[in-house]
């Protein structure tokens, strides 16, 4: 019976006559299936992975088949390994068996939000920020009811932390009668909800992302409602007022602060913020700019999380919750737009051509949202029909905007095709904007598409290099790093306060900033060298961090790139934020560090553990070191299939405690960091510390490819194999040839994926 079955299956095998295939059919197929897909009740996992043929052969030689380990050895083991590798095991083989297609994708929530903001912004003009950080302060003498009796000084303030007792630099300032206002912009780095807090014993109004335009109402001109209104003081008592707002990473918004102190003993003002993942701190100088940005239309509607099951976020599925969020966002957007319609559509309530102008505005809005000129059908459906049916132009405008923002042409950017169903210049423009900015084309891209210039590689390169310097590219790159480093989901990095008394939430926020600055510095430096991510021996430290990590304190309380006394740092591998994130509450976790670094950074393929074993510290004798505990816990051969890779990496970082501080001893025993590490080619190398890890990351093609794959998926949001499995090889070559230039490879990825 079994033989008959085998013969039947053999006939279906592609390489009949191949000796390796014959061995596979004889010894392996009954448990692993004809294409390595697995057999239930036998071995139900599929045989796919990244091991080399040699490494597979060695494994088979040693352990397979399970019931008779000596049945397939030496040359036969090699032949069967060769067969498996080529037939289904390797990624290349998998790509041939299951060709991956490009999916129809909708915008992710980030893309959705940013597109709306940018379309509205395109009617106002984008902010032009200079290089000067800080806010412009205007200092006045106040007299009776006149807040601005006489201007005393104009200057640039790095942060809003004013105190009259310490601030004698303003000549002639009367400590009991003065008023100050500050103007400028704020550039948030990531998207999310930001809180702001004003602390003063005097009067202050803070306007964040509010229209500067004054309006006349109730017989008086005034600004929009203040975001924080603490204008009226009470017996000179110090008080704090807070408010929060949703902001977009890489999108500058205007900030305006009005301050007054009159006949009061004390005069001070502190403006702080709490960014997402952050702690309260004075708004840092590096996010403040002296130029005023125009107001932004930012949608705060909550969306359900996007599918990240493939390791990157993409709009591959839709749900009722998503549909409802799209509906709510369209309502919110149409309201925000209508509130400012006179400016956006360049009209007013008495304008005789108002209806025509609103109609023209909706037409233009649809064009920019769909990222191509409207077809006649679209014009009828989205504009004409609506304005014909509704005499009332406000309702018509709102309906039209809602329909545009819930339209498939807006929601699914990949529907952007020419009349013949093929990609054209507008398709290219939309692709470039989506890849680098998560957004819609700007004016320059539009013009290039209109003039049919986007068929040429030089023009695409010109556009891309221009686009690279935009804040939106920076925001997208930044979020890639957070994703690659698995930091987006890390929230609670608290440690045992008894063991690490000074390591509080403030420190965690500082470390996050330190990591941010480091990554930013590497990418946006001239070399933009991936290798620098692993070889940098200095860390960005401020006073607080310097003290904790025993480094010499920087002169000012700003972040400086400094050497720690241990002198044994190697970029990301030893950045305290990462070491902390992959540690337990009280101690290190070589397993967490090892799994994360081998998978994400070194590109090793690890299967999920066959049976999950929880690490319980109380199961061990208290005098054991962490290395001893982990070694004991994973000694089983099944575990060691992967832990032979994981453990050496984790152990090599045992010189860094749960907060990333350098140490030489644990439990009064000297720490041993040396292990044998199996390379992907299955040779054993000795690793003993971060420098060795850095060498692996710099030299190993698997590591490069892991980085490139993550980056590709984050930018393009389609599986890289959908572009042919040679794409990875050619990207890798370009990357190596360009001295691992990160920005250049981003440009290459966007260019090479242009729809044709």
């Amino acid at each position: 019976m079994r033989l008959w079955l085998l013969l039947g299956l053999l006939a279906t095998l592609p390489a009949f006559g191949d000796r390796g295939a014959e061995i596979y059919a004889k010894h392996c197929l009954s448990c692993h299936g004809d294409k390595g897909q697995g057999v239930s009740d036998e071995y139900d996992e599929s045989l796919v992975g990244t091991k080399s043929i040699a490494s597979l052969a060695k494994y088979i030689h040693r352990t397979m088949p399970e019931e008779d380990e000596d049945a397939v050895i030496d040359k036969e083991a090699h032949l069967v390994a060769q067969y498996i590798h080529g037939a289904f095991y390797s990624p290349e083989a998998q790509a041939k068996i299951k060709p991956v297609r490009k999916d129809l994708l909708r915008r992710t929530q980030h893309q959705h939000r940013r597109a709306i903001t940018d379309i509205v912004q395109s009617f106002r003009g984008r902010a032009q920020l200079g290089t000067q950080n800080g806010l412009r302060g205007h200092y006045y003498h106040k007299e009776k009811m006149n807040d601005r009796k006489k201007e005393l000084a104009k200057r640039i303030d790095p942060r809003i932390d004013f105190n009259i007792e310490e601030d004698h630099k303003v000549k002639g300032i009367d400590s009991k009668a003065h008023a100050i206002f500050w103007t400028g912009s704020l550039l948030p780095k990531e998207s999310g909800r930001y809180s702001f807090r004003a602390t003063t014993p005097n009067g202050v109004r803070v306007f964040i992302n509010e229209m500067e335009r004054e309006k006349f109402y109730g017989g008086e001109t005034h600004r929009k409602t203040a975001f924080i209104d603490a204008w009226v003081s009470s017996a000179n008592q110090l008080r704090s007022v807070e408010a929060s707002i949703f902001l977009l990473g890489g999108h500058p918004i205007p900030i305006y602060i009005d301050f007054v102190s009159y006949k009061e003993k004390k005069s001070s003002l502190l403006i702080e913020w709490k960014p997402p993942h952050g702690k309260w701190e004075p708004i840092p100088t590096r996010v403040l700019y002296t130029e005023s940005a125009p107001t932004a239309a930012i949608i705060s509607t909550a969306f359900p999380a996007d599918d990240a099951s493939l390791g990157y976020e993409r709009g591959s599925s839709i749900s009722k919750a998503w549909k409802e969020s799209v509906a709510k966002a369209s309502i919110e957007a149409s309201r925000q737009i209508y509130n400012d319609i006179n400016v956006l559509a360049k009209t007013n309530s008495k304008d005789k051509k108002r209806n025509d102008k609103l109609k023209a505005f909706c037409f233009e809005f649809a064009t920019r949202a769909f990222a191509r000129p409207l077809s006649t059908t679209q014009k009828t459906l989205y504009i004409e029909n609506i304005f014909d049916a509704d005499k009332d132009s406000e309702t018509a405008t709102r309906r039209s905007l809602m329909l545009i923002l819930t339209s498939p042409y807006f929601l699914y950017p990949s529907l952007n095709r020419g009349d013949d169903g093929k990609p054209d210049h507008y398709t290219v423009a939309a692709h470039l904007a989506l890849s680098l900015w998560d957004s819609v084309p700007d004016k320059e891209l539009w013009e290039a598409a209109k003039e049919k210039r986007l068929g040429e590689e030089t023009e695409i390169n010109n556009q891309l290099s221009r686009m690279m310097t935009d804040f939106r590219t920076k925001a997208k790159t930044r979020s890639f790093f957070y994703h690659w480093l698995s930091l987006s989901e890390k929230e609670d990095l608290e440690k045992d306060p008894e063991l690490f008394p000074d390591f509080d939430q403030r420190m965690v926020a500082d470390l996050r900033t330190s990591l941010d600055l480091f990554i930013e510095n590497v990418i946006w430096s001239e070399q933009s060298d991936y290798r620098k991510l692993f070889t940098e021996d200095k860390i960005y430290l401020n006073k607080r961090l310097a003290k904790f990590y025993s480094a010499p304190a920087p002169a000012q309380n700003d972040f400086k790139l400094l050497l720690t006394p241990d002198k044994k740092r190697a970029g990301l591998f030893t950045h305290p934020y990462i070491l902390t994130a992959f540690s337990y509450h009280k101690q290190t976790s070589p397993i967490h560090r090892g799994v994360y670094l081998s998978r994400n950074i070194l590109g090793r393929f690890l299967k999920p553990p066959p049976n999950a074993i929880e690490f319980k510290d109380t199961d061990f004798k208290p005098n054991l070191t962490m290395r001893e505990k982990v070694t004991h816990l994973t000694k089983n051969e099944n575990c060691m299939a992967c832990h032979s890779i994981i453990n050496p990496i984790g152990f090599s970082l045992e010189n860094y405690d749960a907060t990333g501080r350098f140490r030489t001893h644990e439990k009064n025993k000297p720490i041993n960091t040396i292990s044998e590490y199996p390379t992907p080619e299955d040779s054993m190398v000795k690793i003993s510390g971060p420098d060795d890890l850095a060498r692996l990351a710099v030299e190993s093609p698997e590591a490069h490819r892991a980085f490139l794959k993550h980056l590709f998926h984050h930018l393009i949001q389609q599986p890289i194999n959908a572009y042919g499995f040679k794409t990875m090889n050619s990207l890798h070559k370009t990357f190596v040839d360009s001295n691992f230039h990160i920005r250049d490879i981003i440009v290459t990825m966007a260019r090479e994926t242009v729809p044709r």
Partner: protein
Amino acid sequence: MTSRRHFLRELGITTGALPFLTGLQSFGASTTSGKRQRLIFMFSPNGTLPAKFWPGKNGDLSQSSILAPLAPFQDQTAVLKGISNRVGGDGDSHMRGMSCLLTGARLHPGNIQGGGGPPAGWASGISIDQEIKNFFQKNDSTRTRYGSLEIGVAVPDRADPWTRMCYAGSNRPLAPLNDPYQMLDKLYGQTQGRKTYASILDSLGSDLKRVSKNLSVEDRSLLEQHMTLVEEMEREISATAQAGELAHPEPELDPNIELVNDNTPQLARMQIDLLVNAMANDMARIGSLQFMRSVGQARMRWLDINEGHHSLSHEPDKNEGAQNKLEKINIWFAEQLAYLAENLKNTPEVGQPGNMLDYTTIVWVNELGKGNSHTLDDLPIVIVGGEATKNSGFHHVGTKIPHNRFLLTLANALGHNIKSFGEQKWCAEGALNWS
């Protein structure tokens, strides 16, 4: 072809029709039986013209040019003379007039410099409307969804002692909601937006169909799911639309009234309609309706007046032109009060004989007695409906009677039996007897 929009209109889509905005509480909160009592303060600024305001001893409203618009409510109107704001302390008369008006409490020292006196801050106590609201909200039989509604008409968007009369407590001013569209949102959720959204679903469905025709089988499945969701939403909307309606449907607002000075008359009507509607649906039993602000400079061009109100109020009595204009302005305010009263009178009281006005006490107040003297004596106080029904007519209650006692009287009349309100010394003689 009947468009989706008309279809929805025919179904009578109103409140809560669109299920995708969840989290809305049920409307028309309380299910309590028994007599409801309501209180509304209406504020107009910059003092009155005493000679044109006070009616004769017989209380005939048609004899007072300013109060004449209230003549139809003669039997339900009381006019009280002899009440003073005696709170004193920091701040100028306008500031104290405004921020002590309903609080009866001094202003904190602060940084706001007025036209006279030392600079001052917010009031140091709760206002009477909020005091009574808290009392109502504590009790199941009087609790409503909002308790109170603070509504503004042409109140400038700034927060200082001249613009705030309602206080949740010391140093806690409450901002009146100025925008009828925001008011509608607050009361009925984003109904307008949701209605408009419902009207586009039909077009959206047909476009999705057209788009998906040109796609591959795999890609089409995503759009088909999308279509299913759109259809589902349409079904839910029509199902909810057929379910229950409000006792009093939300008012239809003209969608094109901008928040600008010259639209004040329309905005006032919209706000009053919303206030009455909300009270009819028992969302709140306490309300305030604040016109402009103390020292307000509204330019009432709809009355052919181009000067700012506050500047006019400073003109001496002998300036006849200014007097005529101020008279017109105050008549206009009285007309707003009459509109409010009429609106209430035209709405039957649920489960009780009579109409809403019978159960609603409207109190018209002003921060000054007279504009050009800045006096805080003889505040012009008019009560319409509710408690005034039993005690209508002209009441000269005394001389310089502290207004704290008047505020205390209102609380007691609504069943809140406190013994004192605001600064204690002004309530030593207890509530007023003005019948």
